[in-house]
């Protein structure tokens, strides 16, 4: 079963969308360079980007201090945001974000930025690898063990938390008839035995498997029986007939807003089941016509911010991005719950304000000064619109958006009556235009 491949034109607009869906948008010149490779070359370069290079100066906090991602609240968020901005492997970073959402673990329950970043490195290492290996490693990842009470699940006193969520959210899905309540209880027994120690000095440490705490009795799962280990429990889920359809449909939803048709689904399942290869499935999704000609997607808040910084060639120069992420509905390492973020509902009046504040914060370092207008004739409305669009490196804007921007600039300039106003207003108008362009529907979607 072959999956459909997009056959249309692959120019800069298509390359730009691909860079948004598979990464964090283009740096200056990047869309043109990718377009020159053609669709196949472009997807290939995203899937096999070579060793990571971090382009641009390292990040720092408000007073210029280097970030302390393990120790200081919010600097974990900024540390990862910087990686998204500077990486030469955008798809690897984007897949790391996908796994963070898929196996959503919150530091709210873990209480250790060090362990959260350890989990983050695990996701990065498995970004485009084999899902069965990823599942095994996540199952005994320290942050996950703490988050879903894995180290409190012992022989004779099972804790169902991980066993339930790994089937419902990670591998099989709810309401599909894939498992029963009894399966949840039996799986929980298979996962028993993970332990750790705690000390005042080190916090949670020494995560290990303790055979004495493991229930090695016979379990009955999905109709088969055996002395299942925790590895068996994982294997039973990924080889369950309902796993592959769950997996490819969920993975698809991160890249394309409309559901795949059934031939596509079948083709993706065939690619996946041959070896649990994430790369094979992602590659097919990135080449699919639905991605290139279908509906737009609202950019996730952190993708939006990373993309704005990349677009103007800027870096992370403030730790304000952490609380701005919170206001926008996406603080990294703090998903709302184990189901992750709701990717269909990023925008409401509160998170919109968060994005507005984010843009305003970015523009704080890029302002026209109304007190020092350039000499000569003050620019007119259309010149100001052109300059503001150029500030954002000429993103494509709809005629409707351009019409509103032009009308704004004309009216706002016409309000200037006093001589000082005629000199100062062009700078104010251009600053406002930069803000309006960034929050426009055109730039918040791709």
């Amino acid at each position: 079963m072959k999956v459909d491949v997009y056959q249309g034109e692959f120019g800069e607009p298509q390359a730009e969308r691909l860079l948004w869906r598979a990464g964090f948008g283009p740096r200056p010149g990047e869309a043109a360079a990718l377009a020159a490779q053609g669709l196949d070359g472009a997807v290939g370069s995203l899937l096999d980007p070579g060793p990571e290079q971090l382009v641009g100066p390292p990040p720092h906090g408000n007073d210029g201090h280097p970030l302390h991602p393990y120790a200081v609240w919010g600097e974990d968020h900024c540390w990862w945001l910087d990686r998204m901005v500077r990486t030469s492997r955008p798809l690897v970073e984007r897949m790391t974000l996908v796994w963070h959402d898929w196996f959503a673990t919150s530091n709210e329950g873990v209480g250790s930025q060090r362990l959260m970043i350890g989990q983050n490195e695990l996701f990065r290492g498995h970004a485009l690898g084999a899902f069965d290996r990823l599942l095994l490693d996540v199952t005994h990842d320290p942050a996950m063990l703490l988050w879903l009470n894995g180290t409190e699940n012992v022989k004779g006193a099972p804790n169902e938390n991980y066993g339930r969520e790994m089937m419902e959210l990670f591998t099989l899905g709810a309401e599909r008839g894939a498992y029963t309540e009894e399966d949840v209880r039996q799986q929980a027994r298979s996962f028993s035995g993970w332990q750790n120690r705690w000390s005042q000095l080190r916090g949670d440490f020494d995560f290990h498997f303790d055979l004495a705490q493991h229930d090695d009795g016979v379990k009955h799962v999905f109709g088969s029986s055996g002395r299942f280990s925790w590895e068996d429990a994982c294997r039973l889920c990924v080889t369950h007939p309902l796993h592959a359809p769950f997996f490819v449909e969920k993975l698809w939803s991160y890249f394309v807003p409309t559901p795949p048709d059934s031939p596509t689904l079948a083709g993706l399942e065939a690619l996946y089941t041959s070896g649990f290869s994430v790369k094979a499935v992602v590659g097919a999704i990135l080449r699919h016509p639905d991605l290139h000609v279908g509906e737009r997607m609202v950019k996730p808040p952190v993708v939006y911010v990373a993309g704005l910084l990349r677009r103007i060639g800027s870096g992370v120069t403030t730790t304000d991005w952490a609380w701005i992420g919170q206001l926008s509905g996406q603080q990294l390492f703090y998903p709302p719950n184990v189901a992750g973020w709701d990717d269909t509902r990023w925008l409401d009046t509160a998170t919109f304000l968060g994005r507005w504040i984010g843009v305003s914060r970015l523009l704080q370092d890029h302002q026209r000064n109304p007190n020092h207008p350039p000499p000569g004739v003050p620019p007119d409305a259309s010149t100001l619109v052109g300059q503001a669009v150029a500030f954002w490196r000429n993103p494509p804007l709809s005629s409707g958006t351009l019409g509103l921007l032009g009308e704004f600039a004309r009216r706002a300039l016409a309000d200037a009556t006093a001589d000082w106003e005629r000199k100062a207003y062009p700078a104010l108008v251009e600053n406002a235009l930069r803000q309006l362009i960034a929050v426009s529907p055109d730039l918040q979607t791709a």
Partner: protein
Amino acid sequence: MRRRCCEEFTRRAEAGAGVRAIEPGMPLPAGTGMTRRGFVTRSLGLALTVYGAGPLGLFDQGIACAGAGRGGPILVSIFMPGGADGMSMLYPAGDPLYAKLRPNLALSGGQPFAEDARLAWHPALAPLAQLHSEGKVTALPAIGYDHPDQSHFTSRHYWEVGATDTELRTGWMGRYLDEVGTADNPLQGLSLTGQLEPTLATTRVPVAAIAGPDQYTFGTSGVWGSVGDRMLETLGRFGELHATDPALHTVSQVASQSDRLRKQLLPFADKTKLVSPVAYPQTSDGFPQHLAGLAAMIGADLPLRCVALEASGQYDTHAGETAALSTAFGVTAQSLLAFQRDLEARGVADRVLTLVWSEFGRRAQENGSGGTDHGAAGTAFVIGSRASGGMVGEFPGLAKGLDVDGNLKPTADFRGVYVSLLEQWLGFDAARIVPDAGRFARPKLVR
């Protein structure tokens, strides 16, 4: 720490907010083209004077918005996230099996529950026990639905949409707002969690999400005066773009809704106007402040109809339940008591009814980690001066009241509660909101 950063930043950002609230008697800012408008908040007894931008009439628009929502009943939904242990809210001290099922978690020392001698209030819920004794709390000690789903997400979804239907995308309050709401009033459905609560999801009319009524201002670096007003006017006009693409449409609609909401909240842009007549718990958690802000908005007669927020705390207590619940219940219950007293002091308590709920209760038998796993029926409360008081349904007992999985069986259905709230409180035909509404018993929840 986080909040302080945020305020510093908003203060640093220059104007663009269009209209600022300032003290009465202050001179008009020269050369801004603004005119002064007076606005008296009835129950605060304070005259708030603000400056409205003349040509735009922003302030008037905000206040004039949708008078239809004004003065009517307000329904508040408070969600306890994670599946709160109902058997610890009203704990069955008098049930002989309680100590056996909960050897480590069994509670003691709580006030007795008047309607059922077997039950007692969690000590940290004493503020609710107080309100119950005043007849202002209706307790539902075993609320749920048949064939319970023990997934947080599925069960919460059922409660949010008001039906055991995984496909429904609108909230039950959202569908009510779609029937009675207007296109110009986002405040008719207000989420106070900083994100839209799915209970309020609509298809036709706008609803609002904010982190607090005093934090909804749009500033921009290097923009001020009439240019700032024009900028925000343009933000509102993104709604005119009429994109056919769903994502573009979403952004343009949210942009114009945000601008409308901003105008509606102008009276609160100055946080010194958010003075509460009663003391709320002092904690880093946002819940008490959300309720304090809500009481102030109701006192100022903003056009609210349905409000959703989350209680203090996380209730998915697979481990460490005793300590987690005593903190979470404590802040939640003290805040709810302060909210009720606040509404009473403002003279608006008879306009507000609050439903406190969770997606499910927890397993009757404790687990090995000092916690409990996911269960079925839980406990809910309806709170307000016009609540019926007493008890709805009953505690089914641990001997006969558990299902095959060891979870509490429901004696009240959440959809019946919604039907009663719609009919008895909001005066609306529940059959238009809740699927198969006729199927559910209608408990008396309002006096």
